[in-house]
Structure formats: structure tokens, C-alpha cells
């Protein structure tokens, strides 16, 4: 090897992160060193990884075989366009999260901090390794170390029982998912003479449509469990709030995307998305997940849980896009498949930016106030102007408002929906309007949720005395937030440039691209199909808004006056205003709870009017937990009790079991 390949750089960053993790463990007694040196150093590694990913997007795949692993089963690495894109995502968002972490973790104790820094860097390294793995063995090793390191990160505050419980639930579902992924790999490997389990062999595997569908279903379930797809989403709203905020940001912003990567890798790269009903399944599941997520987000009272449910919604939207891409690809409409896939990749990148930004923002709020409950926050825009301003960018972006990034990917997705009449299936054509309506509803509800989130946390009057002492975030934290906010703005303003980069991925997966048509009227206008069909120019849009704003402002000043008086709030002349008269989180979500009542499990205790010390109490819960999970848990308990009959603790009985098993097996083999 004469010159260094991008793959070498990426591998180097992984080793560098692992080394940083080890180093912080050795220096457990010096918390200052860890926060001021290790985390920024890790951030630089992330930046290098992002640059490597960007560089590798346009290059031919790099491959390498490592002299590690089991004898006869070496580790294979491969860096192609799909891996490169997700590595870029990991690097770009990871950079900001690490920078933020340098400030956020400064109050932690030495020992805990050292362990946390180790797990944190192992987590990032294993995510990168998941994206680079080119055989099932390495993939599973990386996937499991990702699950384990994130489990330890989630349970950082393991002294709190709820957090231990959340961690356990997360680990359990992660493993159920991992088994399913392992089986999917097994099916794809089946029938091959060699037992190398390389992805190259799986690409070549000619599965019958039955086995291909089995693989797809297994992969969808397995990766879906990591992504938070219904009905295996229950861990997400528990684990995300339990983790420290930078970890929540990393899990929500980046780790969920590795699951999307897995689905894309298996469906498009290995199975070539040939069967149309896969698309319908993915589309339906995605829609249900998106609506479910946003509905539950609207009724949450804990700000991190609210964001966790919003992540479920976004994963649903991503899956809807994947479903559309599969549909188009299965009917050989590759240009349209490229459009849908571009929307997916774009949204994945956007979500990494704005969701990390929002989670980090909640971290700053949590640090400043020690409060996660929306009902005790409020008015922080006056105490924490930096955080409030930067989080506002993320709020507007995630609500899908132009000219920020969330709007671009939603716009592309809706354009893809509008092109479905080209599909040759009349029945599908009837489903599509309903699906479009559902996705539009989810997007509009997301705006509701984000107004609730931002309005209750940052606006209004402080709902609690202690908020008066809230302080703004430190410079490290501001820098991390600012990077992400800047990303939201730039991704929103320059869609054509971003799509030209995404083209390498869609070319590899669908055989077609969007960029050449998207940029046909110049870089300023995004025209995914044709200029007379649809076009959008966020930069132009922003410039006109700013111009009108300026003109209006100057005109009002010029022709009238700028006189302004401050006074107490008027509020229809109502004199006795207290902060408690503002909407609580429950109050703001009440209309949604009422409209979609059937989907929630609602418990209410309303005291009688004669009660002298009335107590109002209400709880809104997920029906699936009681309808699906608890029955399964009970069934498992019963089965284990049955198995318990075999267990006596006497060694000679156990020996006899082995003996009988051996005999049965011998008979079976001879037969």
C-alpha cells in the first residue's frame, strides 16, 4: 500500500478513540485533565472522521482484512459510499457532542468520570466500527460493544433504581434485536460452502424470494429494535432520559442512525430491494411509528422524554422514506427511488443535528436548574439567552419550518409521495393519499410538540423560585450547541450542494442519482425533477424575508416613531397574575390527549367537589406496555418456572441429563 486510504484514516480514528478511553481510565484521579484534554481530543478525532467520510464519499470502496479475530475468521473492513456518509454523520455530530461534553462533565467525580470517558469513547469507536464492518462476525462484535458501552453510559447514575430499570429494559431489547440481526445474517449465509460470513459473500447470495423476505423481516425487526420502531420502542423513552444529556444526544442523534444504516445495508446492498410488499410494510410501520411517536411526545411532561418520543417520530419518517424507496426500486423506477432515498439520508443527517442540539440544550437546562419536569421550568430565555437562542434554531428546524434543514427533507419526501401515481399498482395508488395525509399530519403535530417544548421551557414566567438563579451555559457548551445550530442552518440553506454529495450513496444503492436534475437551474434552486414541476430556494427565500423585515422595520421607524414603554403585563386587565396560571405541560398537551384518547391509557383521579384537601392526579401511558410487554413477561416467567422443575441442584441428576441428551443425539445422528 503506497498511499494512505480513507479507510486507514477511519481505522486510525477508531484506535485513537480507544486509546483516549484507556488513557482517561489511567488518569482517573485528574478530572480536569479528562474534561479539558480527553474530550476535546476526542472531538478532534470526530472532526477528522467527518472529513474522512466526506472525502471517501466520492471514492471507490476501500477494503482491508485485519489480522485480528478468530483463526480462519479474520475481520474484514470496507469503506464505501454508504459507510462514508454515516461516518460523516457520526463525525460531524460527535464533534459537537464531545466539545459540549468537555464543559458538561466538569462537575463529575474523578472515578465515575474516568469510567464515563472510557465508555463514551468506546461507544463512538464501536459505532464507527459498525459502519466499517464487512463481515457478520465483526459487525456483531461491534454492534454488541456499542450496545454494552451505551448501556453503561445510560446507567451512569446507577444508584437510582429507575435508571437501573431503564438500563435493563434497554439491554434486553437490544439483545432481542441482536439475535434477530444474527439470524438475518445466518439466512443470507445459508447455502454457501464457505463459512467466512463476509458481506461480499452475502451480496452474491442468490436467495429465493421466500428466504429474501425472511431476511428482510428479521433485519427489519432487529434493526428496528435499535431504532425504536413500533412495537419495540419502549426502551427509548426510558433510556434516553436516564442517560446524561450528551449521551442522550449521541444515542438519539447518532446511534439510532446506525440502525437505519443497517436496514439500508441489508435491504438495498444485500437484497437489492426486489419485492414491492417490503416497501408497503416499511411504509405502514413507519407511518404508525411516526404518528404514535408524535402523539405521545405531545402529552409528555418530562422534556427529555418528549424529545425521545419525537425521535421515535423521526425514525418513523425515515422508515416511510425507506419504504417508498423500496417500492420505487422494486418497480424499477430508480430515479424516483433515488429521490426517496435522498430524502431519507438528508433527514437522517438533519435529525442528527437538530436532535443532538435539543438534547444538549436540555442538558444545559438540567445543569442550570436541576429540573427535567416541564411543569417547573419557564422563562429561561431571560436567564440563559445563549442556550435559548441556539435551541430556538433547533426547535424551528425540527418543526420542519423553512428555510431550515428539517423542511428540506420533508419537502423532498412529499415530492416523492407526489410522484407515486407513476407506480403501476392501482391498489397502492389508493393507499398513497392516506399515507401522504398521515405524514402531513405527523409533521404538523411535530410543530405543536415543539411549540410546547420551547414555549414551556424557555418562555413565559419562571414556574419555580429556584429558576431565578439559573445561569447560562459555559463556553464549551455554547460552542457545541453553536456548531449544531450552524449545521441546521447550512444544511437548510444549501440543499443542492448536500444532495450532490448524497448522490454517491444513492448511485451505489439504487443505481440512479438526483444531483444532476436537482442542480439543473443552478445551485440556488433545488429542482428534484424538473423546474416547472417543483423548485425551492431556501437562500432566496431567506434573503427576501430579511429584506422585507429590514424594509418594514426602517419604514416604521422612518414614518412613525420608535417610542416604547415598559409596563406590567395587561392580560385583559386581570390583576392577579401568578406563574401558576400559565399552561403546564399537561395543560398544553390536553387537546391532543382528548382528540386521540383511544390511543392512550389514561388514569385520572378527580376528587369530589366536597373534598377539603383535593388532589388532582393524572397519568397517560402507553397501551402497548400493558397489552404486549407485560403478557410476554408473564409468559416468560411461567416458562422459566416450568424449566425450574428440571433444576434440583444435585450434580448426579445433571450428569444424567447430559447422558440422556448424548444418547438421544447419537440415535438421531445414526438414524
Amino acid at each position, binding site marked *: 500500500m503506497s498511499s494512505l486510504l480513507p479507510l486507514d484514516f477511519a481505522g486510525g480514528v477508531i484506535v485513537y478513540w480507544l486509546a483516549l478511553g484507556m488513557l482517561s481510565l489511567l488518569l482517573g484521579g485528574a478530572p480536569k485533565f479528562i474534561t479539558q484534554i480527553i474530550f476535546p481530543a476526542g472531538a478532534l478525532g470526530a472532526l477528522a472522521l467527518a472529513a474522512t467520510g466526506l472525502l471517501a464519499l466520492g471514492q471507490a470502496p476501500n477494503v482491508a482484512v485485519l489480522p485480528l479475530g478468530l483463526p480462519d475468521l479474520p475481520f474484514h473492513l470496507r469503506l464505501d459510499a454508504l459507510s462514508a456518509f454515516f461516518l460523516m454523520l457520526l463525525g460531524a455530530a460527535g464533534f459537537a457532542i464531545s466539545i459540549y461534553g468537555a464543559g458538561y462533565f466538569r462537575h463529575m467525580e474523578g472515578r465515575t468520570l474516568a469510567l464515563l470517558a472510557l465508555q463514551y469513547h468506546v461507544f463512538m469507536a464501536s459505532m464507527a466500527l459498525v459502519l466499517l464492518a464487512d463481515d457478520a462476525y465483526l459487525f456483531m462484535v461491534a454492534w454488541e460493544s456499542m450496545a454494552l458501552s451505551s448501556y453503561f453510559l445510560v446507567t451512569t447514575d446507577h444508584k437510582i433504581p429507575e435508571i437501573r430499570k431503564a438500563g435493563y429494559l434497554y439491554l434486553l431489547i437490544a439483545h432481542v434485536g441482536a439475535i434477530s440481526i444474527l439470524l438475518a445474517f445466518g439466512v443470507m449465509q445459508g447455502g454457501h460452502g464457505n463459512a467466512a460470513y463476509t458481506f461480499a459473500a452475502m451480496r452474491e447470495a442468490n436467495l429465493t424470494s421466500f428466504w429474501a423476505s425472511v431476511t428482510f423481516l428479521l433485519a427489519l425487526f432487529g434493526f428496528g429494535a435499535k431504532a425504536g420502531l413500533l412495537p419495540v420502542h419502549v426502551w427509548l423513552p426510558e433510556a434516553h432520559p436516564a442517560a446524561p444529556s450528551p449521551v442522550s444526544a449521541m444515542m438519539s442523534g447518532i446511534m439510532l442512525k446506525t440502525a437505519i444504516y443497517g436496514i439500508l445495508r441489508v435491504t438495498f446492498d444485500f437484497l437489492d430491494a426486489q419485492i414491492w410488499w417490503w416497501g408497503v410494510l416499511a411504509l405502514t410501520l413507519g407511518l404508525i411509528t411516526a404518528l404514535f411517536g408524535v402523539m405521545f411526545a405531545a402529552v409528555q411532561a418530562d422534556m427529555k422524554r418528549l424529545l425521545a418520543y419525537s425521535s421515535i417520530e423521526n425514525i418513523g419518517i425515515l422508515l416511510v422514506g425507506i419504504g417508498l424507496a423500496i417500492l420505487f426500486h422494486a418497480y424499477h423506477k430508480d430515479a424516483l427511488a433515488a429521490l426517496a432515498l435522498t430524502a431519507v439520508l438528508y433527514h437522517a443527517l438533519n435529525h442528527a443535528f437538530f436532535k443532538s442540539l435539543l438534547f444538549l440544550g436540555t442538558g444545559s437546562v438540567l445543569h442550570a436548574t436541576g429540573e427535567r419536569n416541564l411543569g417547573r421550568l419557564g422563562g429561561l430565555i431571560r436567564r440563559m439567552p445563549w442556550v435559548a437562542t441556539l435551541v430556538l434554531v433547533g426547535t424551528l428546524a425540527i418543526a420542519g419550518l423553512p428555510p431550515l434543514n428539517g423542511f428540506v427533507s*420533508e419537502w423532498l419526501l412529499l415530492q416523492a409521495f407526489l410522484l407515486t401515481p407513476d407506480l403501476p399498482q392501482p391498489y397502492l395508488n389508493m393507499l398513497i393519499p392516506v399515507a401522504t*395525509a398521515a405524514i402531513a399530519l405527523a409533521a404538523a403535530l411535530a410543530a*405543536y410538540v415543539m411549540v410546547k417544548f420551547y414555549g414551556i421551557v424557555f418562555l*413565559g414566567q419562571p414556574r419555580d423560585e429556584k429558576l431565578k438563579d439559573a445561569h447560562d451555559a459555559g463556553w464549551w457548551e455554547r460552542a457545541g450547541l453553536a456548531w449544531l445550530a450552524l449545521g441546521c442552518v447550512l444544511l437548510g440553506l444549501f440543499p443542492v450542494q448536500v444532495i450532490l454529495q448524497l448522490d454517491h450513496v444513492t448511485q451505489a444503492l439504487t443505481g440512479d442519482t438526483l444531483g444532476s436534475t436537482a442542480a439543473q437551474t443552478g445551485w440556488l434552486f433545488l429542482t428534484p425533477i424538473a423546474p416547472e*414541476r417543483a423548485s425551492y430556494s431556501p437562500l432566496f427565500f431567506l434573503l427576501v424575508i430579511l429584506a422585507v423585515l429590514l424594509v418594514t422595520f426602517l419604514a416604521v421607524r422612518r414614518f412613525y416613531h420608535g417610542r416604547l414603554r415598559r409596563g406590567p403585563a395587561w392580560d385583559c386587565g386581570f390583576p392577579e397574575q401568578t406563574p401558576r396560571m400559565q399552561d403546564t405541560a399537561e395543560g398544553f398537551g390536553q387537546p391532543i390527549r382528548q382528540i386521540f384518547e383511544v390511543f392512550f391509557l389514561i388514569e385520572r383521579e378527580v376528587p369530589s367537589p366536597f373534598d377539603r384537601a383535593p388532589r388532582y392526579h393524572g397519568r397517560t401511558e402507553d397501551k402497548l406496555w400493558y397489552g404486549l410487554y407485560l403478557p410476554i413477561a408473564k409468559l416468560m416467567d411461567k416458562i422459566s418456572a416450568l424449566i425450574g422443575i428440571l433444576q434440583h441442584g444435585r450434580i448426579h441428576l445433571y450428569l444424567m441429563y447430559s447422558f440422556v441428551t448424548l444418547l438421544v443425539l447419537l440415535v438421531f445422528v445414526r438414524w
Partner: protein
Amino acid sequence: MNAHLSGILFQLFQSLLVVLIAPLLLGWVNQCRAWLQNRTGAGVLQPYRTLRKLFHKDAVVADNASPLFRVTPYILFACMWLAAGVVPVLATDLPYSPAADVIALVGIFALARVFIALAAMDIGTSFGTLGARREMLIAFLAEPALLMVFFTASLISHSTQLPTIVEALAHKDFALYPSMAFAAIAFVMILLAENARIPVDNPTTHLELTMIHEAMILEYSARHLALIEWASSIKLLAYTTIGIALFVPYGIAEAGNWAALPLALVALGVKLVAAGAGLALLETISAKMRIFRAPEFLGTAFLLAVLGMLIHFLLGA
């Protein structure tokens, strides 16, 4: 280049015209309402007088208002101006229209709405948050419904660009598209809801329990209030012209055809007068709904719009 320049000039002309005549439409609607209710009415120019009065007053802002509160009226005004500039009112030759298609237009309305809702929560009064919550409640059903109306038109014309849609629809023979009929009913319901008209909201009420839009802007005064009121009237005009463009586009000047402009102006005037009178009539004969009924009303609009789209897929028309 010359065509380019004339396009830009035309765009500026339309934007200015729309901003200037918006209060007139509102005055006309109010005057019609007055007549229908057997009152004399204040005349069609009353909204201009109100604006002038408000601009001259000193602004009073609550002690704890943040910069977000003060900048929102300007953002609202800019968004509505932008929206009015995108809709083909007189001619389909609008150089600004490639910057924003119908989805972006819905996005502009959403942007304005999110800002006004946030500003309403900024002071932290009970009415402000109440208004914000109700506004978002109305919006989350009205916005997808509006999108579905647009999509029905997009599917017929194979475009999401408003000028292309309007040209395609204006060129077809005068025939009733079943899908567009559903879309039209849905659109009228959305127009009522989004512009805070009866039966969803009452623009003249200050009765605490029923107000939505008014509750959000309670804390505003003087020039801020003037901008908001002006923006609301532009919004009403924008919605009316969207309705005209989608459902009765006949008479609009096509790209490059300047001779047709005077005729288009007359046609627009007639359509606006008729639409304003119709709106007043609709408001007079219906009663304000309870707020809890609003989701049903908008749910119906949403379903009608989806039905319109479905019918397009079924019948291809």
C-alpha cells in the same frame, strides 16, 4: 433580459398591490357583515384608519418581554408579504415563484404561526398560553388539510409550482373536477379556521373563553399590533387569492401576456368583491362553535381534502 426585468417589476407591483389592498378586503368583509346585520357599518376604509391610529401610538411592552416578543410582528408581516408575493394573483409570470412552491407556501404560514404562538407564550399570562395552545390545535389539523388541497391540484397539473398549477387549471375546459369540488369545500373550511373567522374563531371578540387569535395578541399594542393586524389582513387576502387561483383561475394574465393585465385586474376585483361578500354571508349565517367542536370541524375538512385526493386517484380527474 428585458423579459426578466419586466418580470421583476411585475413581481414588485403585485407584492405592493397586495399589501396595500389587503386592509380594503377586510374593510369590505366587515362592511358586508354590517349590512347583513342591519347596521350602517364603518365604511370599507376603516381598517386603514385603525392602522394609522395604531402606528401613531406609543408601544407598551410587558416588563418581562424578551426580544422574541418584539421581533415577532415584523417576522409575521414579512412572512405574509412573502406568501402574498408567491400566489399568482394577476399573472402567472412571477420570478419569485421558483423560490417557493405550494409546500413552501404552507411552510411560510407555519413559520409565521409558530412565531406568533411562541410570542404569545413569552409574557407568560394565562390568556397568552391559552391562545397559543388553541392556535396550534387548529393548525395541526388545518395545515395538513391545506397541504392535501394543494396536492389534489398538484396531481392534476403534475406540479407543485403555483403558476404552473394555475396555468394548467385555467387551460382546462370549464368542467367540474370531482376531486377539486371536495378540495374546494375543504379549502373554504380551512380558510375560515386559519383566518380566525366565525364559526371557528371570532375576530372581534374579547370574550375570554372563546378567543383564539385575539388571546395570542392581547399583549401587543401600537405599531406591533398594527403590523400584526395588517399581516392578518394580508393573510386573509392571500388565502382568498389562493382560493381564486385554484378554483376560479379564469381571466388571469398568462406568462408574457401584458395586454391581458387590465382585464386580469378587473377580473380579480370582481372575484374579490364576490369572495368577500360570500365570506361575510357565511359568517353571518353561522354561529360560533365551542372550541371543543373545532377539531371535528377541521377533521371534516381534512377528511374531505384526503377524499378529494383519493377520488383523483380513483377517477383520474
